[in-house]
């Protein structure tokens, strides 16, 4: 399919409380900048002209109905979409730290070290808890046992898991509960000291108590990391995020401070979604 682009719909995006010039200023200081992004799966367009900026140490939540493209966008940030053969970016750029991450010079591995990711289904490796955390460092060639021990402890503490597992670091990670596994995955991500952590519906497979713990963790993490979280659960978005972006049919409908989006949505589609009229 060639470029049979529709009328740019991104123009409709209204950014709350920000004038054009202010937005530009924000763009230059923001950590992630997305400009006019069009994304395709084969001949099917999945994202339409996305423009989005995210600031450092801020939690941004992506909400929207299934198949609206929020996960796809998330996976663009660390180029996980490269694994899908038919996926391609047709147009537009993504800058992180001011670098175009899709350019030839980018080492995808270095990128992924800086942009960590937590998946929908917790996926610890069938190794010990210790090995799971140390994996990221070990593949970078860190062999010093002392450093590894330190990092493991720091990360497990960071993920509020240390007290629960400190006695069984050498047990298989698959023996943990679902919530623990997910927090282990977050801890594992932290071990490679990323700047950004992407979370793709991290709580969708967890029970409410485990979810609460993960959410608590996100609250703590945002002092150190920039977090982008995709969620189906609007309450969750309201609880954990500073900003919220609403996607619908591959388009970014509305972006704003979380309170504004939930209390006072500008777009009728956003309102309809938030009030549960579709979803």
């Amino acid at each position, binding site marked *: 399919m060639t470029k049979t682009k529709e009328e740019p719909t991104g123009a409709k995006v209204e950014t709350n409380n920000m004038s054009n010039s202010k937005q530009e200023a924000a763009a230059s200081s923001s950590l992630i900048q997305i400009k006019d992004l069009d994304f395709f799966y084969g001949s099917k367009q999945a994202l339409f002209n996305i423009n989005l900026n995210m600031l450092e140490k801020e939690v941004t939540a992506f909400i929207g109905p299934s198949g609206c493209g929020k996960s796809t966008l998330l996976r663009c940030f660390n180029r996980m979409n490269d694994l899908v053969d038919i996926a391609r970016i047709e147009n537009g750029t993504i800058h992180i730290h001011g670098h175009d991450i899709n350019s030839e010079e980018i080492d995808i591995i270095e990128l992924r070290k800086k942009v960590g990711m937590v998946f929908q289904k917790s996926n610890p*490796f069938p190794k010990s808890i210790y090995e799971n955390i140390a994996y990221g460092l070990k593949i970078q060639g860190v062999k010093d046992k002392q450093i590894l021990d330190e990092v493991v402890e720091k990360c497990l503490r960071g993920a509020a898991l240390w007290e629960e597992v400190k006695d069984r670091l050498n047990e298989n990670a698959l023996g943990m509960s679902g919530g623990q596994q997910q927090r282990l995955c977050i801890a594992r991500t932290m071990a490679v000291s990323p700047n950004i952590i992407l979370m793709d519906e991290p709580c969708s497979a967890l029970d409410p108590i485990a979810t609460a713990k993960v959410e608590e963790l996100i609250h703590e993490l945002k002092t150190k990391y920039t977090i982008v979280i995709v969620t189906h659960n609007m309450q969750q978005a309201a609880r954990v995020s500073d900003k919220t972006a609403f996607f619908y049919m591959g388009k970014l409908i509305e972006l704003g401070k979380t309170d504004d989006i939930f209390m006072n949505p500008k777009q009728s589609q956003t309102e309809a979604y938030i009030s549960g009229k579709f979803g």
Partner: protein
Amino acid sequence: MSTQNPYKKKFSKNKVLESTWTWIFRFATYFIILCATYLFGDILVKGSKTIFKPDFPFINTTFLTKSPQTLHVFEKKEIMYQIDDLKYEIEDAEIIIEDDKPSPEILNGLNSKILAWQKEIKVLDKKRKETRFLYDNDDFRELEEPPNKKLYKHSTYAYSGGGIFPAIAGTLLLVIGSMTIALTLGVSSAIFMSEYSKPGTTLNLIRLSIINLAGVPSIVFGLFGFGLFVIFLDWNVSLLAGCFTLAFMVLPIIIAASEESLKSIPTGFREASLALGASKWTMIRTNVIPYALPGILTSSVLGIARVAGETAPIMFTAAYALRDQLPWEDLENIQDFFFQGVMALPYHIYVVSSKIPQNEYTQSMQYGTALVFMGIVLGIALTSIVLRIKMRKKYKW
């Protein structure tokens, strides 16, 4: 009160039918097991007579360490004539019983006579076994004076003396060589197909042809190996030609099984690894191969059992019916090692069971070889089955 209980057990035709069929199916199952067990038992019992012996070290070391030789047997003529005479007597008596239809008294007399003769034969036979001399070819040549020809009947049986060590060595070399080739090529191809190549028609076509080639009869692979290696590349009947032929035979199986076990690893492991900043190769090395390895190992153990057990592919590519030297003896240079024909256990069984008659002297070689061979192959197969059962329990994701 409870006379009208509708749930009470009742007799019905259906129930009889059900239990009849259950018994039929059960019979089928146990009949198979019985047949197989009889086969195992027969070879085990008769074979262990060759391999084990009652005195120290309890294992017939000659059989396991020597080359096959002609067996020389010397039996006392006197005893043999006696046995023959008695056999004639019995035959005559039987003909009389058959044709003349004698009166009951005579019949009884004859029958008891036959019984007595048979007993006598047994005694004589035992004596014959005690007095006979058995020599391997080597021993026979070293004899200063062979037993007196007037007293002893001298008979020879090809392949029936000595042992089977060259065949064991040959089989091991063939297995090692072919599995090295097959695993290197097969596992690498599987990694490429499952991790690197793009799915599409070409890959499906390749996969389809590999599955189909796995079902091609082994003799066709033998034919191919003969045409390509032995004739076209002029390697002659050699270890190398046999290794390659066997390797190609198991290649489809190894590729298919390795790909299967690579595929069974959840994509989550791959994604998580990549998201942590692993390069593709690091991801494969640390997070794919280690988890696929047990599966690959199981399939390759099964491949070993297949390679070791096949006869047809090596019949005219690698196997010699008889070769005294061991593969590493009398070598002028290194390549001679690869370009020599070897003995192999399966081919040896074929030779001793089809080319020499079945009698008490040849039997020990036949059953002994069969037992050793079956022991090796089934041992490998058992390892693979046990491995797989263990793995199923251990790895569940």
